[in-house]
């Protein structure tokens, strides 16, 4: 089943006296299957938050449509299956964490008993059990983010839409969020989240979509995306003559020299084998052969530069 289906989605903002038009999302087409963890990637201003705000019914598209579980946004009965964490969430500061979650639970019509149990479970899960009786105004940024995740889960939704869920969290907090996302997947939930913290995407996502200038420029699994890029191999050797170094350097992409070692960087593995043979033939020593796969971050930077 398709959890999210976006077709020809376009959002044009008009601003200023002259109603200057800005195309925040440009003819976006995207599908996310139920049970997937989908990472929505893109630099600031790429249109991630605009897309998410359309999906959650906060803003309206200029063209195109968005369906969640086959229902057009914002179908109210379908929205009951959604949990949403906005970017930089802010909450009613006059309430305590518990009161706030109780308020959201009441919106969903949970009974007092069910509310109590659900809130207790959630504050434990996001690590806010000891702070649930404190006013939200006294919460740190990380605690607010955890509270944001708790409120998104209050209705036990089938689809979680998180806008920058790792924002403001320390490494432990980020690990906790990743664990929550993975547990949600284990329970059959769909998670669609935007982030610019790329290692987090690599750690948890089944598929990734990259948005640049409001357009989807790449989509696929991490492996599929990184397959498009070349791996490099770093061969470090020692005890070889300048003549041999010069010969190998002709095929290498880069040569780095230290006092005792020489490192050759290859993008073609065949040259690596030839280098090893040549070094051994001339009595040199192989110190290390390290394959270096390009990270999503490098891929991301490359695509952004290409688009520029």
């Amino acid at each position, binding site marked *: 089943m398709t959890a999210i289906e976006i077709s020809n989605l376009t959002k044009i903002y008009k601003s200023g006296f002259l109603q200057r038009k800005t195309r925040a999302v440009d003819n976006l087409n995207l599908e996310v299957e139920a049970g997937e963890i989908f990472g929505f990637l893109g630099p600031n201003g790429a249109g991630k938050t605009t897309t998410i*705000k359309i999906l*959650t*019914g*906060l*803003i*309206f598209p200029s063209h195109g449509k968005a369906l969640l579980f086959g229902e057009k946004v*914002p179908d*109210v*009965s379908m*929205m*009951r299956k*959604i949990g*949403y964490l*906005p970017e*930089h*969430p*802010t*909450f*009613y500061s*006059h*309430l305590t964490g518990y009161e706030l979650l109780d*308020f*959201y639970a*009441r*919106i*969903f*019509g949970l009974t007092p008993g069910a509310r109590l149990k659900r809130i207790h479970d959630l504050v434990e899960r996001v690590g806010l059990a000891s702070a649930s009786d404190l006013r939200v105004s006294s919460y740190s940024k990380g605690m607010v983010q955890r509270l*944001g995740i708790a*409120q*998104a889960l209050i*209705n036990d939704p089938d689809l979680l*839409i998180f806008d920058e869920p790792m924002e403001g969290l320390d490494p432990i907090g980020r690990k906790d969020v990743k664990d929550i996302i993975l547990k949600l997947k284990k329970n059959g939930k769909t998670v669609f989240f935007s982030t610019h913290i790329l290692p987090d995407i690599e750690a948890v996502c089944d598929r990734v979509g990259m948005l640049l200038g409001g357009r989807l420029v790449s989509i696929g699994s991490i492996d599929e995306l990184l397959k498009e890029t070349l791996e490099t191999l770093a061969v470090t050797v020692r005890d070889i003559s300048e003549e041999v170094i010069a010969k190998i350097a002709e095929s290498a992409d880069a040569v780095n020299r230290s006092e005792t070692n020489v490192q050759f960087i290859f993008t073609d593995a065949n040259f690596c084998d030839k280098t090893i043979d040549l070094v051994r033939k001339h009595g040199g020593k192989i110190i290390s052969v390290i394959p270096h796969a390009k990270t999503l971050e490098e891929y991301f930077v490359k695509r952004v530069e290409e688009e520029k």
Partner: protein
Amino acid sequence: MRILAIATNTAREVIRDKVLYAILIIGTILIFSVRFIAPMSVGEELRLIRDFGLSIISIFGILVTLFIGTRLIYDEIQRKTIYTIIPKSVKRWEFILGKYLGVALALLFVTAFLSLGFLCYMVFFNLPITLNIFKAILLELIELMLLSAFAIFFSTFASPIGSGIFTFILYFIGHFTRDILMFGKLARSEFIEFIAAQIYYVLPNLSYFATRTEAVHDLDINSYYLSFSIAYGLFYIVIVLAIAVLIFQKKDL
């Protein structure tokens, strides 16, 4: 259920606001300060006390309406607290209605608190309390509820300062719509007469809720007048909130 949750949360937000306590304390002190002014009006003490007490309830009610009603929707959007409510299967009209009912509850609390202070004063000094006083307070509350509906309507598209100015102008004009109509007829200009007529027919006539003089002078506020004024106020509230919903329905948040 959703409307009730939003309404009670809004009322709680208002009631937990420290500014409200300041308003209530100052209002109560002012009500009791009439003790020092009353002796100056020889033979008119009772009327002065009633007039003063009802005026304080009215002025402080309007202050609360302007202070809270005008920033309610605007703050929700600016602070982004609405971002975690609308996606929770809350219809936009439910949100507006919930916020409005929350303000109405808060106004009920403010009016009840100040009225209680006023009545305590009357009881303490053994002054007669008439049914007309309660009727005047009830109509005052309806007027405040109508003004807060307008404040919410303005705040769907204007800043709190803008909404505050619009609401205050509306309050001012609302008490003089009949005079404006008369002025239009006397102006001998078709254009001015047309504008005056539009103001008279479009804006609410708030003088229907101004029964302080009757309460002060023990003049009758009959049931028909009371029922008509309440129905008139509620009718306007529904219309104004419906227009607010229409605007809010298509608004990008």
